[in-house]
């Protein structure tokens, strides 16, 4: 089996789905000849031509709006927003149309749309190129949010997202776009949306995370193992809907939890996770659930970026506080 990066795995998923299903098409800035600024769509224009791989004007709102129309008409558009920092302009289309058309038309129309959204920090990118804005979408009704954490995961989740009958924001962690390789099957497989996975079983504490933050979280788990603490690591995979059951089950076993994400703490998805643990497993908790997150500030430019992103050490610090509570 080929060892692929996440970029290659998503590219493979796109290629295979486009071969299987003529309704699938791509649109976005630079997705065509250039193959996307991250090369996720590389080679697809040559194979599928200009009608199925559409370089668009620089218009994030229209990219999403046009894709909604295509989805309503029966196609399976995959819209790319070049960086998460440019998705704000499409919020109106996402909140007012993508997330609403099924319910407001009482099922007459629906919108099977994937918006690909490279996100997050850690690649020394310019300003506005490192936001983690998943919480906005998780808070928005009618939209699903998926965040893969490895190449294998990204292929299976992407295919599931693409075949989902509802709009999905597929957030791609730029930091691990090329930094990991993993065996990725050619054969079709789907990872169902809404189901998290246990990456590491453990007994003393539950570490809950997603996307690029799985790596420092796993490193933290390794470091902790040396000092005799056994961590259970949960990769959420899907942030909307959230797999509450698995989180609760794990916390009931370990009695302690830490959530790790890049986005600002306040009103981040971590808050929702803490709230759900509180609601469903309070009596099982032996310490407050801690959040290791970005700060309530703008993501700094590269020279200060390293201070912003959660690191294995920050996770270990939090775990120590929780364990010794």
């Amino acid at each position, binding site marked *: 089996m080929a060892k692929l990066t996440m970029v290659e795995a998503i590219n493979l998923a796109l290629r295979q789905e486009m071969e299987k299903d003529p309704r699938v098409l791509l649109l976005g800035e630079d997705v065509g000849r250039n193959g996307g600024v991250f090369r996720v769509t590389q080679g697809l224009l040559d194979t599928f031509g200009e009608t*199925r791989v559409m370089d668009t004007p620089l218009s994030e709102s*229209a990219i999403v709006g046009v894709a909604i129309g295509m*989805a309503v008409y029966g*196609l399976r558009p995959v819209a790319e927003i070049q960086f998460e920092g440019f998705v704000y302009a499409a919020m109106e289309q996402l909140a007012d149309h993508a997330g609403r058309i099924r319910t407001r038309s009482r*099922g*007459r129309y629906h919108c099977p749309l994937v918006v690909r959204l490279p996100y997050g920090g850690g690649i020394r990118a310019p300003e506005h190129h490192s936001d983690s804005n998943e919480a906005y979408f998780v808070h928005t009704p009618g939209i699903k949010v998926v965040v893969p954490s490895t190449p294998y995961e990204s292929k299976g989740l992407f295919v599931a997202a693409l075949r989902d009958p509802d709009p999905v924001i597929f957030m791609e962690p730029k930091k691990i776009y090329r930094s990991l390789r993993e065996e990725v099957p050619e054969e079709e497989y789907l990872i169902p949306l809404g189901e998290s996975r246990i990456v590491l079983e453990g007994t003393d504490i539950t570490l809950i995370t997603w996307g690029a933050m799985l790596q420092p979280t796993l490193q933290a788990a390794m470091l902790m193992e040396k000092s005799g603490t056994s961590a259970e690591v949960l990769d959420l995979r899907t942030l909307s809907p959230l797999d509450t059951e698995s989180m609760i089950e794990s916390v009931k076993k370990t009695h302690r939890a830490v959530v790790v994400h890049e986005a600002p703490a306040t009103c981040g998805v971590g808050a929702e996770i803490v709230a759900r643990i509180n609601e469903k497993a309070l009596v099982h908790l032996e310490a407050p659930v801690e959040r290791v997150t970005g700060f309530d500030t703008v993501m700094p430019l590269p020279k200060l970026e390293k201070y912003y992103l959660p690191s294995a050490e920050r996770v270990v610090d939090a775990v120590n506080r929780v364990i010794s509570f």
Partner: protein
Amino acid sequence: MPKMVIETCSVEWLQILDEDGICDEELRPPLSNEEIKKLFESMVLARTFDEKAFKLQREGRLGTYASIYGQEAAQVGSAFALRPADWMFPAFREPGASFVRGLPIHMILQYWAGDERGSQIPEGLNDFPITIPVATQIPIAVGVALAAKVKGDPIAVMAYMGDGATSKGDFHEGLNFAGVFSAPVVFVCQNNQWAISVPLKRQTAAKTLAQKAFAYGFPGIRVDGNDVFAVYRAASEALNRAKAGKGPTLIECLTYRLGDHTTADDASRYRSREEVEQWKTKDPIRRLKKYMEKRNLWSEAYDQAVRSNAKEKVERAVRVEESLPPPDPRDIFGFTFEELTAELKEQMENFLKVDGKERSESKDVLYG
């Protein structure tokens, strides 16, 4: 070549039927007598509906409603040019167009009465529901047009918007996108000269809205929006262009909102009675009537029949709407996704249980 003109554009005005019902027969679209009658009847239906909806609102039987008084020709004339397979995107002030398309009349009442089922467009009717956030339907309409083009379906899309909508980013992004990909779409802008209390000159410094099409590389035309022939002709030609692969057109229908913005508005706060009265003389229905009279297509008896027919249709729609069972509260949850998520299932179940018991009507009243 130091200084030279490298590109020019001109905006045409089209009027076929003037305020006195005098028609330029050369420009008149080739409509049969039956079709001309249909245009008249559709406009009368639109106005009859409008008057009724206004009354219902005043009687507390309908929520906020946006009147189309004065804009009947712009709506009927344009929608009349569509084929059933074409798609239509209303803004929020186009019942006249929706009825021409075949939307059951009671559904517009249902929508403004606060019932989502009014947006559950019947299968087979290719219309989008009303869109409240101004201009946001435009990129979606362009998406439908491009999807049809990709699939090779020989249809076109018509998208409505107001003059206010031309200021929004989505108007620009949508029209520009349509231009680049030569999408089979016709943009019908009902320039009724007001966006709530904001007059056209506060909306743009451009002399016409039609000229905005030039920015996107396709034609724009301003038509007399109270002249149903001019509107129909411009719409037909634009739809033909679109279906022939020649791309989009922007049609500016110059008209006037004779009523308040909505039933929640009081236009006398911000505009003069004279302005309104002056525009009443341009009534689209009266001028078609005058024309038909000359052509012996109109008589008092015919008029009576048309009006009572329209009234009956509208009254029937009111009865239908008012006799519908209330929407099921479960529908709040059930259409968010194709399948209920765990969160929504739990929220719905908690909602349905009150004090541990199934929610009942008597308990319901406590909520809210």
